[in-house]
């Protein structure tokens, strides 16, 4: 029995009076990739953003439920969200590097944590870019603006930026949705290579991506978690009819 790194129980989330998540129960082993799939508007992003408290930025969002990260309550009043977000990193759908150099982007998380040592920074920037499989493409000019890179490169730099702070969990909200197939493929390879060191939760609309990448798949619909199982089981032999229908493209 492995210790769960993250558990979420009875998650209910309200935008104003509107309940967007109706009691989600999901937990995660350390390491490996969990894919969240489901039709548009089913609450995948909403759920994902609850995990690192990104909803705090908005006024009218109420989050209920029990979120435990390594035995600590994520929503406890005394939780340091800044520290939490260093441990639970996030990569967004749109590649969104800051308008700085590649180096400054990747070093950002370290610098705000107070790291000033040049050689430590250099080394961490290099390892993170290598982990994100973009090092070879950018190593010759780390000081050019990250915005001058292609979308796929930008997304991998964004992943490197998230990896540089060495989070335990990486949340990815449709990280390849804005990318062409070649770039998506590279990002997928990146994630595959990281599965033994990170716990990753990835939202995706691509069934083939979910089946290629993930160890486990969770199917969301209209704010409910319909089913969660090993990816193989989900794709070959799902229990719920709705899952079957969605995966085979009958709705959604």
């Amino acid at each position: 029995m492995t210790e769960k790194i993250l558990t979420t129980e009875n998650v209910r989330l309200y935008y104003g009076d509107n309940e967007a998540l109706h009691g989600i129960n999901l937990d995660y082993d350390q390491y490996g990739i969990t894919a969240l799939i489901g039709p548009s508007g089913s609450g995948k992003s909403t759920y994902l953003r609850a995990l690192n408290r990104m909803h705090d930025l908005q006024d009218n969002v109420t989050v209920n439920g029990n979120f435990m990260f390594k035995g600590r309550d994520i929503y406890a009043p005394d939780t340091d969200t800044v520290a939490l977000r260093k441990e639970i990193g996030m990569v967004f759908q749109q590649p969104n590097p800051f308008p700085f150099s590649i180096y400054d982007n990747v070093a950002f998380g370290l610098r705000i944590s107070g790291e000033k040592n040049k050689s430590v920074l250099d080394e961490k920037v290099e390892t993170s870019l290598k982990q994100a499989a973009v090092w070879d493409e950018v190593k010759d000019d780390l000081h050019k603006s990250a915005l001058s890179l292609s979308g796929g490169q930008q997304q991998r730099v964004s992943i490197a930026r998230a990896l540089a702070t060495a989070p335990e969990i990486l949340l990815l909200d449709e990280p390849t949705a804005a990318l062409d197939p070649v770039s998506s493929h590279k990002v997928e390879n990146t994630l595959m290579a990281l599965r033994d060191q990170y716990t990753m939760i990835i939202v995706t609309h691509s069934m083939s991506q979910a089946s290629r990448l993930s160890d486990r798949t969770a199917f969301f619909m209209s704010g409910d978690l319909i089913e969660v199982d090993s990816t193989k089981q989900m794709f070959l032999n799902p229990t719920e009819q709705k899952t079957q229908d969605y995966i085979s493209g009958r709705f959604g």
Partner: protein
Amino acid sequence: MDEIRESLLKQSKASRKDQFGRAISFSALALIVIVVISIFYFVASKGLATFFSDGVNLWGFLTGSEWAPSQVGDNGKPLVGAAPMIIGSFLVTLLAALIATPFAIGTAVFMTEISPKRGAKILGPVTELLVGIPSVVYGFIGLSVIVPFMRAVFGGSGFGILSGAMVLFVMILPTVTSMTVDTLRAVPRHYRESALALGATRWQMIYKVILRGATPGILTASVFGMARAFGEALAVQMVIGNAALMPHNLTSPASTLTSVLTQGIGNTVMGSLENNALWSLALILLLMSLVFNLAIRAIAKKGAM
């Protein structure tokens, strides 16, 4: 057959209207262009006459420190050294922008990041109000508040560059602030989100990401303020002391290009050297505002996100 052809060849009502509209807007545009060109031509021809017909040396004009166009110096040349006014203008402008920019950034950060709701409610009306106040009112307030204050603190008359800069600072603050607010608002939301998702505190997000991303816009706002300050005449004239002397410190009477112009232009005879020399000052003003404009464009182009 012929009927169809005829109706096709005839202009429709809509296309006639279209042409009419185009003619109107084109003539409006042409008028503006003509006015601008004439102003340039007029100022330039008058301003250059100092050098071409009156034989004043350009370098001497720009660097000379004695301004008394009606008199001649020991060398028999008229005393038209514009350096005191040029320096005065630049000093009040730079000082005003130097004080206004940090203020504007602070206010803008409060209004966009810390308290956006209240910020939006207050900023709009206040800015409009402050921009709408005529400059003579600012000058008058400067005269009755700032000048006595300077006198009390630094001694002397209280008139001088510092007083001028203070008045200009208040005058340009609303413009610079509201432009800075606009730039901060334009910083994409995802920069904020990714900064926070990387474990930045709110303050780190503000000064490491938002302000850094907004630097070109803030610079533009600042230069815009400078352009306004450089061209302001009345308010400055009321508090600067109007002595066409090389400024030795910030609290002794001095003058700017604009203050000398507003004072002198009515008291000189068209075509005389005194008059032409003032036009030369006007030409410098015009060229400077061109420079400010180009600077704003260059910054905007370079910093386009």
